[in-house]
């Protein structure tokens, strides 16, 4: 270190001087060194060598510490001056013509060189001082850096420790998440060895530990309880299962008993089995028919023993219906149709056939149907067959009459028992030609059915009362019906059955009456004889049936048409009453709801000119006599004599009319054609001078109303 660079410097110094033998020797021998005595040997060091010589080492740096910088600076200045002076002298000498190599010049040159050496040493000294100063600064700096680093390290560590402390402080142990009972409870409940109050009251750590212990113990205890409860529950469930199986096993036994009791039932005529079988089949009935069955059976049992209900039809098909429909068939037919269409480019027959199939599908009937039979007192039976149209959700009815008496008498009575129109207008304006379900309109549009009336002959009539019996209610407000209501059926059942019976009886009675009327006899029963005088001269000549079109064309019925009392569902008849030259034509409108609605008579008299109820007030009075006084003419209940009594009264009135006609008016002479036979008090009364048409019993005279 400090010796090595010194040694190197040493050699340089020696070489620069031209080298003295001493210096060469110093170079050759590192251990020994001597310096010119010109410079004080300051800072010698003694090197330890094997020769055991005291060697002095010239250490210039040590020398440096001893020199004073001021002095060196002065020395430098003086040397520079000296050199400058010498140079000046040399120059002077050279200028004064001294020769090259003269002694003065050489001497000055020598002295100048010596000064240069001193300058060099001073320069060296300066450099060395600088270097030393720098080294010292450097060292100091390094020391400061080291300290600085240490400071940084410590600070960093402090920070780190602080963070750690923070973390430690934030640490939450899991034990705090466990819900523990409150402290008071804990002290109350926990046994002393766990709670250890003497320790825990002071030390919160201990307290928490104790509490945790207690918690653990409690939980263990409760878990035990839970397990035991589960076990008991399993046992009980098993017990229940066993009992259920036992009950199920009873079922076959009961069936066997039922079978065995069949003969007993037959013997005692309590047909439970039959009823049950019917109930079994009834399960497959569609809901409206089921409602009808239930209500009709109930009504039959409760009120009307002459009513019997039975189910007919194919049960298997019904069962098949309740299974999900098979789609493959439909798909096949559709795809077939498509293929054909593609191949032959719209063959119309296919589309038509497809539409036809769709129609048939829409109008399909449920395979099961109900048959209700109403037995009447005279032995005739009204058979009603009820069908359910599945897609249209309506019920239809077909009717058949088995009459006890022979019905082949009357020609005009042909329409009376026609199954198509027998049940027409059971309730007012219930024609049964159109479906009462408004939703069907949209369904019909899809398959191109214009009017349901075309299918009525085949499918039966969808009367509104039939829907009501099945509990189906269609109103214009709510086109959707939720499901059949049995209360609706029940409320209609009695009245409908009564109406049906009444209708049948009325028609049968009319049938009998018509056959008599056609033979020109007006049948008047004994109870009604009091309404008429003993002798009636006018007689019924003809009784024929008319069609609606024929009726409309008659001139003397226009007032009835205008009053809106005629419909094309009514039955029309023409009666001709004759006496002498007088002929009275009566057009009769018979409403299907006879005898609830009175038949309407319109009169036209052909006698010395034609008169009708419009032109002759007396004929009008006769019309009102026959049409208006229903309460008198209907006879004993149920009023089936109405029509025949009306006919008889008409004949009586004609008698009165003809006999009281005064001859003075038409100015004819000679005996009267119709002598006065009826007893009348007055022949004219009131502003329009009406004739007396009212018969008084038993006095037997005629008076005015």
């Amino acid at each position, binding site marked *: 270190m400090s010796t090595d660079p010194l040694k190197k410097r040493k050699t340089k110094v020696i070489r620069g001087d031209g080298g003295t033998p001493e210096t060469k020797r110093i170079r050759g021998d590192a251990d020994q060194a001597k310096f010119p005595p010109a410079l004080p040997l300051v800072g010698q060091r003694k090197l330890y060598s094997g020769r055991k010589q005291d060697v002095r080492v010239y250490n210039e740096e040590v020398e440096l510490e001893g020199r004073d910088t001021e002095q060196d600076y002065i020395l430098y200045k003086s040397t520079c001056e000296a050199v400058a002076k010498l140079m000046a002298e040399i120059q002077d000498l050279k200028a004064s013509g001294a020769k090259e190599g003269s002694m003065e010049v050489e001497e000055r040159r020598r002295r100048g060189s010596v000064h240069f050496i001193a300058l060099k040493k001073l320069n060296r000294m300066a450099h060395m001082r600088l270097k030393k100063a720098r080294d010292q600064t450097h060292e100091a700096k390094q020391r400061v850096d080291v300290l600085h680093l240490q400071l940084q390290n410590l600070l960093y560590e402090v920070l780190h420790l602080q963070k750690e402390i923070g973390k430690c402080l934030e640490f939450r142990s899991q034990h705090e998440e466990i819900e523990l009972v409150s402290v008071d409870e804990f002290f109350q409940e926990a046994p002393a060895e766990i709670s250890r109050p003497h320790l825990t009251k002071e030390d919160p750590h201990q307290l928490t530990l104790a509490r945790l212990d207690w918690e653990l113990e409690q939980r263990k205890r409760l878990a035990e309880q839970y397990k035991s409860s589960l076990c008991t529950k399993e046992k009980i469930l098993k017990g229940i299962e066993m009992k259920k199986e036992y009950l199920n096993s009873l079922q076959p036994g009961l069936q066997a008993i039922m079978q065995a009791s069949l003969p007993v039932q037959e013997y005692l005529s309590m047909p439970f089995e039959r009823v049950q079988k019917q109930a079994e089949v009834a399960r497959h009935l569609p809901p409206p028919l089921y409602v009808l069955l239930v209500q009709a059976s109930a009504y039959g049992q409760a009120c009307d023993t002459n009513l019997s209900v039975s189910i007919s039809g194919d049960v298997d098909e019904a069962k098949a219906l309740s299974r999900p429909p098979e789609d493959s068939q439909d798909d096949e037919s559709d795809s077939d149709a498509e293929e054909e269409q593609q191949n032959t480019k719209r063959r119309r027959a296919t589309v038509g056939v497809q539409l036809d199939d769709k129609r048939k599908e829409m109008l399909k009937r449920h395979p099961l149907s109900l048959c209700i039979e109403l037995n009447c007192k005279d032995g005739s039976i009204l058979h009603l067959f009820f069908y359910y149209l599945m897609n249209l959700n309506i019920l239809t009815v077909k009717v058949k009459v088995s009459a006890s008496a022979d019905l082949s008498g009357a020609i005009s009575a042909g329409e009376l028992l026609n199954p198509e129109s027998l049940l027409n207008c059971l309730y007012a304006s219930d024609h049964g030609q159109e479906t009462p379900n408004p939703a069907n309109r949209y369904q019909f549009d899809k398959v191109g059915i214009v009017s349901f009336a075309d299918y009525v002959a085949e499918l039966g009539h969808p009367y509104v009362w039939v829907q009501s019996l099945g509990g189906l209610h269609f109103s214009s407000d709510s086109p959707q019906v939720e499901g059949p209501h049995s209360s609706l059926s029940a409320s209609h059942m009695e009245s409908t059955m009564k109406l049906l019976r009444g209708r049948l009886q009325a028609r049968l009675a009319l049938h009998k009456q018509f056959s008599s009327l056609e033979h020109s006899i007006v049948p008047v029963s004994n109870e009604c004889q009091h309404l008429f005088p003993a002798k009636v001269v006018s007689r019924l000549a003809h009784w024929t049936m008319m069609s609606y079109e024929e009726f409309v064309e008659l001139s003397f019925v226009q007032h*009835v048409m205008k009053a809106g009392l005629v419909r094309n569902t009514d039955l029309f008849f023409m009666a001709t009453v004759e006496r002498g030259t007088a002929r009275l034509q009566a057009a009769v409108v018979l409403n299907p709801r006879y005898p609830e609605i009175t038949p309407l008579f319109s009169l036209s008299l052909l006698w010395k000119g034609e008169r009708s109820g419009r032109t002759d007030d007396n004929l009008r009075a006769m019309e009102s006599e026959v049409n208006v006084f229903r309460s008198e003419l209907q006879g004993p209940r149920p009023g089936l004599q109405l029509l025949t009594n009306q006919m008889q009264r008409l004949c009586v009135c004609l008698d009165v009319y003809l006999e009281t006609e005064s001859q003075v008016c038409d100015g004819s002479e000679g005996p009267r054609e119709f002598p006065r036979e009826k007893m009348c008090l007055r022949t004219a009364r009131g*502003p329009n001078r009406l004739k007396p048409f009212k018969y008084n019993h038993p006095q037997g005279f005629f008076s005015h109303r």
Partner: protein
Amino acid sequence: MGPVELLHMSVFSQTFSPCGRFLAAGNNYGEIAVFSLSAALSPDATGMSQKPILTFAAHEGPVFSLISTDTHLLSAGNGEISAWSWAELTKRSTKALWTRRPNYKTSLEIPEINAMIVNSKDNSLIVGGGDNNIHIMDMETGTFKSVLQGHKDYIHCLSFREREGELLSGGEDGAVRIWDARTGQTVHCIEVFKYELCGGGPALSLWHLRSMSPTSVFSLAGCQREAVFYQDLILTVGEGPYVSHCVPGGTVKAQIPSSSPSLNTLTLNLNSNEHRVMTTAGSSDQIDVFTNFSYRAFSLSF
């Protein structure tokens, strides 16, 4: 009233209320219906205003005659006369004020009352009907003062000549008796002005009263049941569905069709200026209202 009863209804009598706003009509079932004429004639009349505001059963038999005094409506049924207060009727109260019966001899058949008129001079009611007699009743006391006998058949109509104080009656026997006495031909109804009008069969004819001879005979088919003088026209109704307008000279000026096949009664509402209409009714349940006498405006119905 069902549709069949309505079909066979005949209206026999009508009269207007003293204020002229209401019309009362009587039919063959013994009912009286009160119609509000002002409602039916108002611009915002609906179908409901052509229906009666009140219909009630007044008598057992047909109501052949109705007349109106200043406060009362008098109706004649089967041999009895009932009085109703117009004020009460407009409030829809149908209690009769009184019902009186003339003294009839026969009891087998009750005679109808066909005609009634009021003699305002001595406040008496004169009725004529089926028993061939004319009964005069005092309105205040209600007793039947006197009986005028003479007709041989029932009396159709009555009329009064105020100036001379004479009563004329026409009957089925063909006589028109002027009580103070004379006879004529078969009549139905008369109204007297200076002339006398006799309807009925054979024909409607106009008679001059002083000379007691017919001045003109009208050629109308059918028996005329009611005829009135109006301004310079004679309006008459009877058999046949029309109202005939005739001129005293003897010509039939016009025949206005109506809705009933034959008409029994015709009245003019002279009590009110704003509702000056003519109404006719007959053998149907419609009462035709003529606001302009040349055509039928609308019909009220029972």
